[in-house]
Structures are given as structure tokens and as C-alpha cells.
């Protein structure tokens, strides 16, 4: 299971760059998918993981965030309509031992929320008692390893208008992440400012 994901990453064409205190790795897969991961150099935490797929009609799609903040450069005139900045936003931000989702701009107290597992769709579901917020999302890391979602691994907390949903990382995930980290460390990275060119 885990091997399939590692193999997939290995088969991709990789570019590595160290910039702003982060190790940035860009993968392009044979089917046109692109993956970009950014690791913090000090803590080794995964700060950003985003995907880009080719559109059905060709052309480049948009980056879709799996982990990390979305870039704030959005313009309502270009997009036509977009969520107001006062709305709840879900951002995934993992720690070493936990998957963690933070939903900002949720002022309601902690007993308003319920987080459950939908086994059929393999998703986590966040519900609110006052019907203000609802979100279904999957946990791609567990899908890749084909591990079960377990209700007893979930914990929630609420502070500073933010709801934090944590899910304990299973043993298998931790092992694989360590293995990948070691692989990445071996990669030759271009430093910021260095351009790999050979003057003739």
C-alpha cells in the first residue's frame, strides 16, 4: 500500500529547491499531474502540499491545496464571485503526529460542532448545530495507504474563533513519512539564486 505511493513519487520527475527556509519539491507525473510539496527545514514539517491537474480541454488548471494556506491573491472582479473573507475557511496544517484541520472564522462555542466519520464515502464530516457550517472532506494520506478512518482518533478543540480538528496519525503513516524524509534529504537541491547553467 504504502509502497505504491512511494513508487509513484519515485517515478515522477522531481525538482528540488531550497528557498525561504523551506525545501520545495516539485513532482511531475507522466499523466500530466503536478504535485508541489514544501517542508520546513528546521522542523521537517510539511507546510504545503498542492496539486495541479490538466483541464479536460487542455490548458493548465489551478493549484488545489491539500495542505497549507491558499495564496491570498484573489480578485473578485476576475473570479466573478468568491467567498467573503468573513466566511469560515478550512486549512489543513499537520503536526508531526497529527493530521490537523483548522477552520477559522467560526465564533460558535465548541459544543456546536460534531465531527463524524462517513465510512461509505471515506470522509470526515463537520456539522454545526445551528446549521451555519458543514463540510465533508477526505483524508488523502489514509486513502493512499488504504487505511480505515476511525472515529476514536478524532479530537476537537475551539479557541480564538478557530475550530481545530485533529486526527492521530497511524503508525504506518509515520513510518512512511520518515522513509520519504530520508529520501528527500538525499536529493540534490539548488540553492536560491543559483541557476544550474554551464557557461561555455
Amino acid at each position: 500500500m504504502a509502497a505504491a505511493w512511494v513508487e509513484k513519487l519515485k517515478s515522477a520527475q522531481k525538482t528540488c529547491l531550497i528557498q525561504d527556509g523551506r525545501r520545495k519539491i516539485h513532482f511531475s507525473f507522466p499523466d500530466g499531474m503536478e504535485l508541489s510539496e514544501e517542508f520546513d527545514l528546521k522542523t521537517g514539517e510539511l507546510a504545503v502540499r498542492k496539486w495541479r491537474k490538466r483541464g479536460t480541454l487542455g490548458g493548465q488548471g489551478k493549484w488545489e491545496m491539500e495542505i497549507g494556506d491558499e495564496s491570498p491573491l484573489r480578485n473578485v472582479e476576475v473570479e466573478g464571485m468568491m467567498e467573503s473573507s468573513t466566511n469560515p475557511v478550512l486549512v489543513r496544517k499537520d503536526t508531526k503526529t497529527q493530521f490537523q484541520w483548522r477552520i477559522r472564522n467560526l465564533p460558535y462555542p465548541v459544543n456546536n460542532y460534531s465531527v463524524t466519520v462517513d465510512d461509505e464515502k471515506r470522509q470526515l464530516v463537520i456539522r454545526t448545530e445551528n446549521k451555519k457550517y458543514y463540510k465533508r472532506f477526505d483524508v488523502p494520506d489514509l486513502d493512499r495507504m488504504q487505511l480505515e478512518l476511525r472515529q476514536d482518533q478524532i479530537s476537537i478543540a475551539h479557541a480564538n474563533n478557530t475550530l481545530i480538528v485533529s486526527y492521530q496519525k497511524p503508525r504506518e503513516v509515520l513510518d512512511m513519512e520518515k522513509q520519504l524524509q530520508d529520501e528527500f534529504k538525499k536529493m540534490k537541491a539548488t540553492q536560491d539564486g543559483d541557476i544550474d547553467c554551464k557557461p561555455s
Partner: protein
Amino acid sequence: MAASTAEKVQEVREVTRIERIGAHSHIRGLGLDDALEARQTSQGMVGQQDARKAAGIILEMIKDGKIAGRAVMLAGQPGTGKTAIAMGMAQALGSDTPFTSIAGSEIFSLEMSKTEALTQSFRKSIGVRIKEETEIIEGEVVEIQIDRPATGTGAKVGKLTLKTTEMETIYDLGQKMIESLTKEKVQAGDIVTIDKATGKITKLGRSFTRARDYDAMGPQTKFVQCPEGELQKRKEVVHTVTLHEIDVINSRTQGFLALFSGDTGEIKSEVREQINSKVAEWREEGKAEIVPGVLFIDEVHMLDIECFSFLNRALESDMAPILIMATNRGITRIRGTQYLSPHGVPIDLLDRLLIVSTSPYEEKEVKQILRIRCEEEDVEMSDDALTVLTKIGMDASLRYSIQLITAAHLVCRKRKGTEVEVDDIKRVYSLFLDESRSTQFLKEYQQEFMFSEVQDQMETS
């Protein structure tokens, strides 16, 4: 008092936008029955029965979708309904069949070569029906709020609150979105879906929770349940895109946005080839379907010899749309050469065409058209005035008498009348010359105009 009424009128205008009226806005189809026989007056079309019947047959050909690269020429004097027939065909085909309408002189531009402009319009006329995943927002409108800035000018700001049974979200609206929401008359209690990529809004109906006994509603108001779950969903939809749109998406890195910013410039032929083979691949896999459309070139005599030879070649491709051309020229010079040819089109291209001719309207038909135009422009006219106008239409031209409708209506309004009378027509007839009276006038007073003496001197010298 007067100020307040004026304000009110402004307000009403804002709610029900008055649409501008084009010369062919009254045409809704070809006006044929099921057996392709032309009705005398139907769907805004009057007379020209033979030409309409012919157009109907071509329409069937297009709908079949099997034939590529046929060309039809509509030939006739000015003001005999050539463009009207083309418009009627576009309307009859429906919105799912691409219909591109250009004028012959449109292709001459400094930024693009003639053949590039022609190729682009060819590719705009071929549709591809394909399944695509898009993001849609589906929910019940809780509140829609559009604020105009206090100064009266400048950008409007809008907010739209949508909800499902489980959640609620506030959206900021851009200028285009505000416009289309007003156009669709979306209000609180409506259930709507919005396609995020294209910004297309579809009203599904009214929410059940908003059903009240005494609500004023049309007979076709539909009540639907408030949607469940998340507001934003991914959905597979089948839609038609033109080959040109696919070209644009693939020729630029920033992708879809380029469609809206206009200015695509020239598209490399490698990109086109690549897309052709991609589309062929999709077709074989059953993923996509080709929808041949129609390219209408008005005033085709304005094309030059290079364009005509390009057309000859382009019509032979299996990706060619049905080409409809219209011209009002008789035997005339082909642009870019010294040769004379019928319709100003070289014989080798004429040979590939089916030619449909239109003939001048009869008095009865002119009257009918004028009546339809009066209705379209919201003008009430007495029978006598209409008869006089018809007479003018026969003597001068149909276009001239259609122009007089609006002018006479204004005169009538200025004297606070409700119905346009013969006197109003007389007044505008004396104020505005038609082409033949103007020519007459010029002939009489030629001497008084500028440069006439110069010419005389030149002739004598």
C-alpha cells in the same frame, strides 16, 4: 414633484432593463411548418417564401450534422431580407449549435492576417460536445444586497448569501456577476445554481419554505426543496465548446481567463493540429461529439481573391462548417483583381455554392413588415399612417420607411399624441430625405457644392 417622478422612472428602468432594439430583433425563426412549407407571416418573417423554403432544407442538412463544408449563397437586392433569413436560421438552430456571424470587411485587420481571421471564424463555428467536471454552487438565496456608491458613479458592491439545509455562506460579487444576477432577477427565496467557471446562473425555482398563499407568482413558478449538504459541489456537465475556445485555452498558459480578456492574436498552426488530433481521439473514444455549426459571412463581395481561394480549400476539410454567404452585388469586380464576375465571387467558388435568391417585397408584405416593426419598437400607428408609410416604403426603400417609424414616433410624442398619424409621417418625410430625393437634390444643386468649380476648370484645361 417632477423630480420625484423622474427618480421613480429611473428606478423602474433599473429593475426592468430596456433592451436595445436591433434591425432584426423581431425575427424568431424561419417561420416554416413541419413540412418545411413557409407560412406567409410567421416568427417575424414575411414573404420571401421560396428563399425561406430553401433555407429550411439547408437547416435540415445542418441538423443532420453529416455534411461538412457545404456553402450557400443568399443573393438579392438591398433590403430583400437576406440577413433576416440568416438570422432566422440562427434562431431556428437554437443555442446549442454554434452560429458565427461576420461581415466581409471584418477580416481586414492590422493585427491579424486575413486567413487567420477566417480560420478563427471557421473554428468558432464548429462545436464539440464534451463532458467536463465543473464546480457549481447550488443553494437557496437568503439575501442579495447590491450597493451603489453614494456618488452615483463607480463600481457597485454586492453580497449574496446562500444556504443549504446544513450551512450558509456569504459571497462577494464582482461586477459581471451583479449584472447577470439582476438580469436573471434573482431574489431571496430562489433556488439557484451558479457555474463557477463560466458564471452562468440557472434558476431552479422557489423554495418551499417561501410558499405563501397570497404571494404574487406566475403560473409557471416551480417550488423546489432547499438543497442538502455542501454549497459547492463538483458535477459532470455536458456542454458545447467551440474549437476556437479549445485553441485559446491551449495556446496560452494562463488558460481559461484568456477567453474573457479578448485579444487572442494569432494561434499557431501546430496548436490547431494538435487539437484536431486530440478531438479526433476523443471522438473515437466516444468522449466527445462534433457539432457542425454555421458561419455566416455578410457582404461577401468585400472579401478579396486570396480569401476566396482560401475558402475553396478550407471548405474541403472535414472539420468545415456550413458556410452561408450573402451579397447584394450583381456582376462586379472581384476585389483584388481586374476581373468581373457574378456577385463579385470567382466562378470556381460559385461553382461550389447553392445559390438562393431573394426578390423585392410586394406592397402587402412591406405593410406587414412595417406593422411588425411598429410592434417591436412599441409604436402605435394609425392605419392611414401605415398605408402612407407603406407607399413610401415601395417608392423609396423598406429600410428608409423603417427608419421613419422611430422618427415619427418621436415627433408624435413631442406633440403629446399616443398614436402616430399621417401628419407625423409627413413631417419626418419632409425633414429627412431618402436616397433618391437626395440624389435628385444633388443633381439640381451640383454647382453650389464645394470643388465643383475646380472640376470645371480641370475639364476645360
